[in-house]
Structures are given as C-alpha cells and as structure tokens.
C-alpha cells in the first residue's frame, strides 16, 4: 500500500534520523559481461530469454531509428536529431519495464524510448522535425512531452507520481535525464521532493559522459552519480548501461518497489554517447576517436545478441524477422516524415489560452488577413500589382 500523506506528516514522525546508519557503498550491477557471458548477481536475476529476445528486437529498431533519423537530418527532413546511438539498452529498458498505468518523462534524446512506449514514431519526431513542440497526445500513452530545458521535467514526474498516490492509483513515473542534468538545481529539488513525499518515481540517469562537449569530470567531483541518492535518502543503483538484462532487472525492481509504496529510486546507467550531441556538433573538437572506438566495442546490441546466440535462443529465422521489423520502422519514418502535414497557422493562437483573449483574437485576424491577401495576390497577380 502506498504511504499516505498523513503517515508522511512532518508533525508525527521524528524530526531527525540520527539513529540510522548511512549507506555508503554502491556497486555496479551487471548481469551479462561485455563478451556475452552471463554473470551471477546475488540481488538480481537474469531476465528470461523470451524477454531478452523482445529487448533485442526493440534495440535493433531503436538503432535503426537513430540511423534513419540522422539520415533524415542530412536530407533536410528533420531540423535536428540528438542521437541515442550506443544508449539503446537504456532507451528500450526504461520504457519496456513500464505498465500501461505508469508514466514516462523523456528528454529530447529519448525518442527511441518514446517509440518503445508505443507512441507513433512520426509523432515522436514532430518536435525534431519542427512541425510542433510535441506531436503526440501525452495522455494517450502517459508519455510527457519530450523536455528540452535540462532536468526541469523531473519535478513534474514527482508531481504526477504523488498525485497518483493521493488518488490511490497504481502508477509509477519513470523520469529520464543525462549526466549534465544532474548539475541542475531541478535535479536536486526533484530527488529531494520525491524522497520527502515517498513519491513513486524512478529516476534513470543515462550517464553518457558528455553534456554536448563538457565531460563528466566537469559536472561532478562525486565518485558516481548514483551516490548522490544517499544524500537525499533515496536508494540508488549503478548499472552497466550497455547491459539490457541488468537494466531490465534493476529498473523493474525499482518500479515494483515504487508501486508498493517504497518510494523513489535513483538509477545511474553507465553508458556512452557514441554520436556527437546532434548533427550540428563536432565531437572531434573535444574527445579522442580512440575513446569512441573503445565504447563502440562495448556496443549494447552486440552484447545481448552474443548472449542470445550463445544460449541458442536466437536463430537465423528470428534474426531475419527482427531485421525486417527494423527495415519496416525505417520505411515508416522515411515515408511518414516526408508526408507529415504542416499545421495551419491558426494553431499558433488556438491553444495559448482556454479563456478568451481579445488581443490574441485580433492578432490572429491580422495574420489571417495577411494570408488572405497573399492568396489573392498569387491567384490574381496582375490586379494587385502596384
């Protein structure tokens, strides 16, 4: 049963926790080694092969989304694309462990997670295509709009989760951010609020080592990002972010604990941003190619594939099926982005306020008059020539 607000009351509980021993040790959770061999863990079980097959299939699709979206930028079809190449294990696991009643709070780099959650891929790319700021209905899939200002969506996740507790709803919020975002004040406030209100939130930090060009060492002097949880009284885990099995096990346990009233968890995924920040970035100015090659060798897709192949769970037929699904996704993106309609200019005014604004009505009328004049000018060029 979720902890009620009444039981959380500051007036009833002790006002300090001096009698509690602080936790200081956080160790890396890994269930499959980089070479594909399983590794025993005393706290987390390896997910069963069927589940890992589904993860691998989704990761292939996520990789293809990253590749196709980057290609669409080069063709001028998308405005910009921040790739999550190399982080597909995080992207897929974060969404896959959620139940329909749960919420996902993604950033601009989490398109693949949004798609894994079930959002239409073309709608998921509306922001980056520049058609509108959010292309999907956030209530339909319980996916908040992709957030651009770093860490600012994390307090929203706390609010949604605490609202669920107050309503007696079985609902957990999965809030995503990167290593750079952990330097923002909102990261701190969100973790602190979540802990104080025992809100059912799982914070997943994809530590991909760079905030555009600024390396992790310039974000923090802490030994890990997970260790920050200790300061908030939030249980934390450090996970191999290129091991989809470990991510699945740890994130699912965190979701379950939150749903059972155990409060928030901070999960740091140790991963790497293989691509530049976006297509507009030049990563050669701030990092060595050798570092990128080293991480590319720890590719999360290769790891899970090797495990599944070695165990005899993945045969040629399945590989072909998965590849076909990825091809289909790429085709859907190419066609969908190319044909996605531009919204009517009236949309600019339609949603700003629900109540009447005479000023906006007048401004919209002005724009419509300009458009009408343009239309007439193009239909009857001679008559309007001056």
């Amino acid at each position, binding site marked *: 049963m979720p902890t009620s607000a009444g039981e959380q009351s500051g007036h009833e509980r002790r006002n300090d926790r001096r009698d509690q021993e602080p936790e200081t040790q956080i160790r890396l959770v890994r269930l499959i080694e980089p070479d594909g061999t399983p590794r025993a863990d005393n706290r987390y079980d390896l997910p069963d092969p069927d589940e890992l097959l589904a993860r691998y299939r989704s990761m292939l699709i996520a990789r293809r989304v990253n590749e196709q979206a980057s290609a669409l930028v080069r063709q001028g079809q998308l405005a910009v694309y921040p790739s999550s190449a190399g982080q597909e294990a995080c992207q897929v696991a974060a969404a896959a462990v959620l139940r329909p009643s749960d919420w996902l709070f993604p950033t601009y780099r989490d398109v693949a997670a949004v798609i894994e959650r079930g959002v239409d891929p073309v709608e998921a790319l509306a922001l980056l295509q520049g058609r509108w700021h959010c292309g999907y209905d956030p209530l339909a899939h319980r996916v908040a709009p992709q957030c651009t200002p770093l860490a600012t969506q994390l307090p929203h996740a706390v609010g949604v989760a605490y609202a669920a507790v107050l309503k007696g709803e079985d609902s957990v919020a999965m809030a995503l951010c990167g290593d750079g975002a952990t330097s923002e004040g*909102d990261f701190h406030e969100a973790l602190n609020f979540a802990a104080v209100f025992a809100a059912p939130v799982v914070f997943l930090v994809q530590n991909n080592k760079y905030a555009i060009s600024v390396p992790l060492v310039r974000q923090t002097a802490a030994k890990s990002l997970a260790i920050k949880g200790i300061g908030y009284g939030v249980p934390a885990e450090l996970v191999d972010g290129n091991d989809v099995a470990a991510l699945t096990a740890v994130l699912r346990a965190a979701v379950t604990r939150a749903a059972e009233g155990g409060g928030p968890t901070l999960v740091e995924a140790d991963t790497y941003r293989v691509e530049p920040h976006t297509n507009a970035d030049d990563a050669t100015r701030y990092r060595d190619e050798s570092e990128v090659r080293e991480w590319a060798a720890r590719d999360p897709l290769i790891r899970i594939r090797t495990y599944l192949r070695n165990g005899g769970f993945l045969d040629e037929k399945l590989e072909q099926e998965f590849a076909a699904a990825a091809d289909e996704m790429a085709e859907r993106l190419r066609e969908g982005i190319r044909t996605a309609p531009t919204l009517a200019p009236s949309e600019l005014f339609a949603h700003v306020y629900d109540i009447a604004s005479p000023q906006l009505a007048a401004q919209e009328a002005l724009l419509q008059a300009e458009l009408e004049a343009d239309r007439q000018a193009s239909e009857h060029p001679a008559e309007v020539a001056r």
Partner: protein
Amino acid sequence: MSAAKLTMAQALNAALRDAMQADDSVVVFGEDVGQLGGVFRVTDGLTASFGEKRCFDTPLAEAGIVGMAIGMAMNGFRPVVEMQFDAFAYPAFEQIVSHLAKLANRTRGRMRLPVVVRIPYGGGVGGVEHHSDSSEAYFAHTAGLVVVTPATNQDAYGLLRQAIDCPDPVIFFEPKKHYFISEPVDVTQPVAPIGRAEVRRTGTDVTLISYGQSVSTCMEAAEMAATEGRSIGVVDVRTLVPFDDETVVAEVRRTGRAVVVAEASGFASVASEIAGRIFEQCFYFLEAPVRKVAGFDIPYPPPALEHHHLPSVERILDVVDELEWGS
C-alpha cells in the same frame, strides 16, 4: 448572506476553503502553509480542516513547488501554491515560464494546467530587501499565463475562486499591504469575471488606471481632487492578462486624459504597456499626453526610504495638474 467584515487575508482564506470544499481536486501547498497557516495566515486552518493530503508543507524550494504543481495538474489536480514573498518566486521562474505557461500550447491543448501561483507582492510594509518587489511585468510578458491582482477584499475572494476554477495557469498577485485591512465581503455576490476591469469611480476630467495596492492610492487622490473641483475617475484593471482594453479605452475616450499608476519600476512595465495601448486606441480623443506615475527605475529601496519610491497621492495629483488644462 450579508457582507461580513474580513481582511484580505481572511477573504483569500475563505476563497481557498470554499474552493477546497467545492472540489476535492483542489490542493494547497508551499512553504509554511500547513501547521503555521502561512506567514500571512492566508492558509490558516486548512490543514486542520482538510488534512495533510489537501494542504501541506513542502521542502523550501520554489522551483520544486511549482514543478510538483505542474505534475499534479498533469494528473488531475488543481494545485494552488504559495510563493512566500514576491522576490522568493524567482527560483520558480523557469518552471513558470518554460512549462506552466507553455504546456497547453506545446500539447495543442491536450494537457492544460489549472494551477494557481499565489504571490504576495508590493511594498509599503516596511519589509527588508527582497520582501517588497512588484514582479508582475515578468509574468505579464509571458504568453500563456493569466495574471490577476485584486485591489479589494471582495475581489480577493471572487477572483481567487475564479482563478482556481480557471482552466489556464493563473499568477495571482496579492497586494500584501492590503492583507490586514478590513472591508465588507459578501461571498455570495459574484464579482466581474477574470479579463474585465472595473470602474471604481467615475470622473469626467481624468481617468486614473491602476491595479493592486495603487488603486487605494488613486481613490484617495480622486477624493482629494474632488474637494478642489476636479473630477477624477479610477479604473481598477484587476486582470493584467488578458487585458480589458474595452473598459479602459471607453473611460479614457470619455475624459480625454489618462494617468497610469503602479508601484513597479516604470521602465518596460505593465504601466508602460497600458500607456502604450491607450495611445494607440485613444489618440484622437486625448487632450494631453498619457502619463505614468510608477516606481523609480531603481532596486526596491530599504524601508527607511521606500516612501520616496511609492506612488503617492501628491505625486499623482502633481502629474494630473500637468495635463494641459489650458489657462
């Protein structure tokens, strides 16, 4: 029910109480709003009456408070949050500007945020630094926010009830100098809707346009001018956004003279915007330039000097005297 004498703090408290009674989704939270009842006692007794789930204290972090309110509104609640003082709302600025104001537009109206952010504002109360700002222009400039400020206790009750019912986010500025002034309030009497200004006093010679605490000063100035044979009208704007051009323009066209009065520093202010709108819409009716009586363009002064900064009856009447009356 007949009118009872209430302070503005009590009128606001009654509005919160009645709104919470009427709608289970209304929740109140912020710093010291629980057991203590708020530093101005606006939330007095709400936790006792409605419990910790409906009115509760939070950690001391304004961005977190507004961010959490946004999330709760995304999931079906109508949060009313308190920023303890005007200048302490600034940490929440990003949440307000980048999310509270924009989410409905971002989601094409699929996700609206019926959040009220209450901000005690303004000076004249002897507050030390950071306790007397008039910060309304920052929020009025941001599309997507409704910005409201009552000048009377009747409006404090009525406008707060409307703000809580409003589907859009509302920044609700409470003139803190008015908190402990008693006036008759009849909670059964509806007030004009958000978006409408009120003519508080009709006049034939000059129209003063004002809001919040300055409305009282304008009323006093009009009273004094009347004894000298000059007829001054006073318009209380009530809602800074969306602005009621219709009422303001009609009054100024009638009198031909306008002075905009507000405490906030005048440069790039709400008062400037109002003056500009009057120029655009009343030019051919004007007998004199539209003038402003606003705060100086200085950081808010210490209490020992603040009376020099605030619009006074004398300063208003001096400006009125300069409005091209002929000889």
